[in-house]
């Protein structure tokens, strides 16, 4: 009997380790021979821990499992109280277009054999037979844009680094996934680490870099452990000739997700945002030409090199090509990772895929793109998931996170939280962010206390302008998005009374 | 080292001689006497000449030759 018990942070946080132990001991007790595979998660988090049992029909799922549900696994599976049917047929999964996350949850993340059996290293092998310029061209042609938030074309960045002259170049992977509501980086690292390794190795070939660093946040201890193991395995298997990879642990600074702050942090300095130019592609890590890409961008690359740029570019809409792993989180019934081509509407994602709120109450707002992303109200659910369409509504896709709130949430409180978060995480370099975030909190406190609401709201809006256009990086520059969107969409939460009543 | 002036002058002359000791003898003697001529004040020279006249005790052979050569030039017979 072959049983899959996931080992990603979510399932482990929900007791998967204990579950695996219970299954083993139950099997031993019953004299049943089982092989337990610790696969990665499929990203269907509302079902975690999702135990899968290999059957003739396919892998049957059971979740969310508790230890009490273990004995039943050894009985009639169809009658198991937590049975969810064949995993592949669960609509949440079936509806996805899994290019980047195709192996997640299926394989044992640390099994090279598994990885290779599922097309692993095909892209790297192809790349080895190509000129660096051709690799860059393929990435350019795929239309892949940086998945970290800025959406800059990855191929152009690579081309710049390839053309730079230097003895040492670097590939740096930004795995400082600090946005609330996002977990795609973590998932790929925990469920399919070789995919990221392969992507970085391809990047190394494309630009002539021999060293790669993954800057991984310290809040992801399991991901750090798994990726370190995977690098050792891949290196020892001789799969990374001329490419030395290392995981570096962050230290709890959100701002280090900003690429130049990340580089400073890697160098061992305070994670301060650098002014650009010079751009990292020319003077990046230790002053050398550096590709700095998000996990998802790099993890998308093996597919592009394996299947061709056209296959990837065939998905998506407008200038947003390929797929986006949307992360549905917060107060939502079916939270998890949903990889889909660009173009699906926000409403479909929240209501059809996510199934509405977990609390069963009406959705009040959705924050898209992390703590620096705008809030959307249900009235805007027709917005297609696309960089430009979001931008047109003063929002951003960012790293693909969606956090759902039900109608009990006070949006003034969330606006204040946005300022508080900015104040907490500000590196302190530029004035609008360093002082502005604190003044923003204070002004919102006044508004929430009903103090000169109209006047303070005007001050707040001015402050948001100052921060938006005056800040050095996106932390201060984008904090106004959640604040202003909340202010615009939910004025009543900010004590704004209908005008006629207040007017003389 | 004693503080007697002539002791110091003998010491200095010997020290200068050592700096030129690697040269062939004739050249060394010329260099040393030239150095003395360029840098020694006349009462210093008078004292060392006098000392040489007294037998030149303590002076290295090279220094002796150089002082003698300079003395010949300074006080042509």
């Amino acid at each position: 009997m072959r049983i899959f018990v996931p080992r990603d942070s979510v399932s482990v946080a929900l007791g998967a380790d204990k579950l695996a132990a219970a299954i083993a001991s139950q099997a031993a007790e019953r004299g049943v021979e089982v092989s337990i595979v610790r696969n990665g998660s499929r990203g269907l988090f509302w079902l975690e821990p999702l135990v899968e049992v290999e059957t003739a029909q396919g892998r049957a799922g059971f979740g969310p499992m508790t230890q009490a549900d273990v004995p039943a696994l050894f009985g009639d599976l169809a009658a198991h109280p937590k049975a969810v049917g064949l995993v592949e047929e669960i609509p949440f999964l079936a509806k996805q277009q899994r290019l980047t996350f195709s192996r997640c949850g299926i394989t044992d993340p640390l099994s090279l054999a598994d990885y290779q059996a599922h097309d692993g290293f095909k892209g790297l092998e192809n790349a080895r037979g190509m000129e660096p310029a051709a690799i860059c061209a393929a990435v350019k042609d795929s239309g892949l844009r940086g998945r970290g938030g800025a959406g800059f074309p990855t191929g152009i960045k690579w081309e710049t680094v390839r053309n730079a002259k230097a003895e040492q170049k670097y590939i740096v992977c930004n795995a400082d996934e600090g946005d609330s509501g996002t977990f795609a980086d973590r998932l790929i690292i925990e469920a399919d680490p070789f995919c990221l390794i392969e992507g970085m190795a391809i990047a190394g070939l494309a630009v002539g870099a021999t060293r790669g660093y993954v800057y991984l946040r310290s809040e992801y201890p399991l991901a750090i452990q798994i990726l370190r193991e995977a690098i050792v395995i891949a290196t020892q298997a001789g799969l990374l000739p001329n490419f030395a990879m290392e995981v570096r642990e962050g230290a709890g600074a959100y701002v280090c997700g900003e690429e130049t702050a990340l580089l400073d942090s890697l160098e061992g300095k305070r994670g301060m945002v650098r002014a650009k130019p010079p751009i990292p592609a020319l003077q990046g890590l230790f002053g050398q030409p550096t590709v700095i890409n998000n996990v998802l961008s790099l993890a998308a690359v093996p597919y592009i090199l394996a299947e061709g740029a056209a296959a990837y570019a065939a998905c998506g809409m407008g200038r947003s090509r390929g797929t986006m792993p949307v992360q549905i989180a917060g107060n939502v019934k079916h939270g998890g990772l949903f990889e889909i081509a660009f173009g699906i509407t926000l409403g479909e994602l929240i209501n059809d895929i996510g199934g509405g709120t977990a609390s069963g109450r009406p959705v009040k707002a959705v924050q898209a793109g992390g703590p620096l992303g705008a809030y959307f109200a249900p009235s805007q659910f027709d917005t297609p998931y696309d960089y430009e369409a979001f931008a047109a509504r003063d929002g951003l896709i960012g790293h693909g996170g969606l956090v759902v709130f039900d109608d009990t949430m006070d949006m003034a409180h969330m606006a204040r939280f946005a300022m508080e978060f900015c104040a907490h995480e500000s590196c302190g370099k530029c004035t609008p962010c360093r002082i502005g975030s604190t003044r923003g909190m204070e002004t919102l406190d006044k508004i929430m206390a009903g103090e000169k609401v109209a006047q303070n709201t005007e001050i707040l809006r001015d402050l948001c302008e100052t921060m938006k256009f005056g800040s050095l990086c996106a932390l201060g520059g984008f904090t106004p998005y959640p604040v202003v969107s909340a202010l615009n969409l939910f004025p009543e939460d900010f004590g704004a009374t209908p005008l006629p009543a207040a007017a003389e | 080292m004693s503080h007697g002036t002539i002791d110091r002058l003998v010491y200095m002359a010997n020290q200068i001689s050592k700096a030129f000791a690697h040269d062939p003898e004739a050249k060394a003697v010329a260099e040393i006497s030239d150095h003395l001529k360029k840098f020694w004040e006349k009462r210093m020279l008078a004292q060392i000449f006098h000392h040489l006249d007294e037998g030149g005790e303590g002076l290295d052979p090279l220094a002796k030759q150089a002082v003698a050569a300079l003395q010949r030039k300074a006080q042509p017979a």
Partner: protein
Amino acid sequence: MGLIQETDYGTKPRQATALVTLTIDGESITVPEGTSVMRAAAEMGTQIPKLCATDTLDSFGSCRLCLVQIEGRPGTPASCTTPVAPGMVVHTQNSKLAKLRKGVMELYISDHPLDCLTCSANGNCELQDAAGEVGLREVRYGYEGKNHLDAEKDVSNPYFQFDPSKCIVCSRCVRACEEIQGTFALTIGGSGFNSKVSPGISEDFFDSECVSCGACVQACPTATLMEKTVIEIGQPEHSAVTTCAYCGVGCTFKAEMRGEEVVRLVPYKDGKANHGHSCVKGRFAWGYATHKDRITKPMIREKITDPWKEVTYEEAISYAADKFKQIQAEHGKDSIGGITSSRCTNEETFLVQKLIRAGFGNNNVDTCARVCHSPTGYGLVNTYGTSAGTQDFDSVDEADVILVIGANPTDGHPVFASRMKKRLREGAKLIVADPRRIDLVRTPHVEAEHHLALRPGTNVALVNALAHTVIEEGLADENFIRERCDWEEFAEWAAFIMRPENSPEATEVHTGVPAAELRAAARLYAKARNGAIYYGLGVTEHSQGTSTVIAIANLAMATGNVGRPGVGVNPLRGQNNVQGSCDMGSFPHEFPGYRHVSDDTARHILEIDWGVSLSNEPGLRIPNMIDAATDGTFLGLYIQGEDIVQSDPDTKHMISGLSAMKCVVVQDLFLNETADYAHVFLPGCSFLEKDGTFTNAERRIQRIRKVMKPKNGYADWEVTLMLAKAMGMTMEYSHPSEIMDEVARTTPSFAGVSYKALDDLGSIQWPCNEKAPTGTPVMHIDGFVRGRGKFIISDYVPTDEKTGPRFPLLLTTGRILSQYNVGAQTRRTENSIWHAEDVLEIHPFDAETRGVKDGSWVKLASRAGETSLRAKITDRVAPGVVYTTFHHPLTQANVITTDYSDWATNCPEYKVTAVQISLSNGPTEWQNEYNAHSAQARRIVPPVAAE
């Protein structure tokens, strides 16, 4: 006379030859490629508001006031971090930008005290100015929010205060400490709103790594870092550009004044030696000029056991002149002489040597260079043809390998050291040859590739072994040698250097430097594209000082490292005007411009100009003067601005020589140690009170300018002039510029120098004449000054100062950052807080075997004498070596040093003395007697009130 204001262009200038034309606010401007938009605007007269940008630091982009709009580009980029691009169209002013800037300023002021009227920076505050520029009228956030207004002041530094309540976190101080000074003593602690400038581990300034160079204070745009004198006195109202009177770097400062009171000295950005940087001495330690110890009235006494009597200048001068004349009448004209000062101006020095040569009628003139860089003169004149360093300071920017021998730049020449460290941080490699682990060996972000920790006294062996490696391993630059030097002399030298006794393996026995390490260092230097040598008194103050200078000159020639920027042989000269005092003819064998007294042409020029006949024979050097004094043939001495009792070796012999004289005239700011043995005291004048020029270690002649009246009534040159007249000379000068004119007309290498030229050019590096009308930054470019470079054999002759069972340790001496030379000036400032006494550095091993603990009083004894001081246990020195400074008269380190000296120049062997250490209870009897004698010798009887 107003306050000199320097334009701040916001970002550094670019040197690119490619030019870029762009449009700013409708006006077209062309600037070098890489220039920032901010600087381009400033160059056309448009000041974009800024706070974090200043043109001495790399652009940073944090204050967000300098935002502009650029057509075709999104957002509002910072003009300080945005380089110009061809055809770029920039708008620096529009309503959107105005609103943004006001918004940012409103945030700043929401966390800033509203005390402009009582603030020390009022009227000279960039924040205040910027608030005005952007038209901020109101802070709508109120002042009840979170703020830093209660942050505590740090007053620990004696010279400046840190008031974090006024800090705008622009990081200019932190960046200045890193980029300019290279100490990295400051950081921003914390993050976000809690970001705070922090010295060390949130320590106070005094306890931190801060070296008080003042760069942070200079960089601060507000009153956060402020000179205590400004807080006390107020903002200055007029200023003059002048030159520092401390070390040989020759930093240019603005002396900023209120009336007759100095408010502060601020480094001048246009200063060619310091480019706007400073150190703790020049920047802050000028208070000695008005110290209560200063003597401002002439004094005389019959016997040195008498108390001093205050008299008029006329009385003192005629007293001295009469005595001198009387001595000469009784003992011949050679029985008196004088000593010029490396602290005084070129003009003053010139006048003193003229007084001696033309007035006294002999060449008995010497100067303190005798005890420091006289071997440099001899060595470089004979090998290259000129007695000075080959480079300008800027040259270090192009050096790839830097060899520092016997110099401690971070303490001795701090402003140049910062420059050097910057180059080292940029990637140049460093070799340090020094018995002691000086800071440069390993200091934040700088680490020597090789520290050749040689045994004191073995420099020649070490440098010869470096040359041996170069020749043996085929690393010599044959083309250079054939083109620039005499090949046969080279071959002769090479044969000598290839002797087995000069190999690294053989010299290891003497030097203690492992052969493999030495060879590696030799290769590094020889293979460098540009290899530069910097050396100091660790080279010259030896019995073989001259030989080492020659060996260094040979090494540089053999590797082709002479005659272009980035290379050369660079003596780091000690005192502010030691180069100048030598240039001005302070040596007994040389007229101004290094012309031997026997040189008929030179002598005739002077004889005609001065209207007297001059002696063609060399005069006495200082030690020989003292010998002659004890012999009874030298009885009168005029000493301007020197303290030979403290600074010269073998103190006891010096004292007996001085005591034997009939008339010793000392001219100084203070009653120094030498004055204890003087009969006439003429009050000196500080650099702030007179006009003149100093010449720094890079041959740069720079003006000093009078900013206040002489406290003693006259500039030093005026007093010398009075003495000269009293001696019967007919000299007339109404201004020092006339003295410089005389130097120029009588000295070929100074032919083009005049005060007018100095005012026009800012400064001039000699030679300056028809061939080089604006001076000569790098020498020997098209060939050596003497024609062909001369290889001279430099044999290693061990010093006669040997260790043995009685004196098993070697003492070497040096200086420290906060004190200067004999300490006459710095000891009279707050600098003593960093170094209140001389201490003896001793290795833990040597300390343990003698029972010495950190802080113990130890007796330091040599064949010459003994003294007591406190011990400091450190592995900076190797076992067998001890080290101390000579800044404090209480210690009298020169009681210990012997009278061994350089064979060619008599430069004393300060760097090698065999000593023994034992525990003691405190100062020695001799020290106590000496101090008692000093107190006795300095009694002053006030003048009897007129009836």
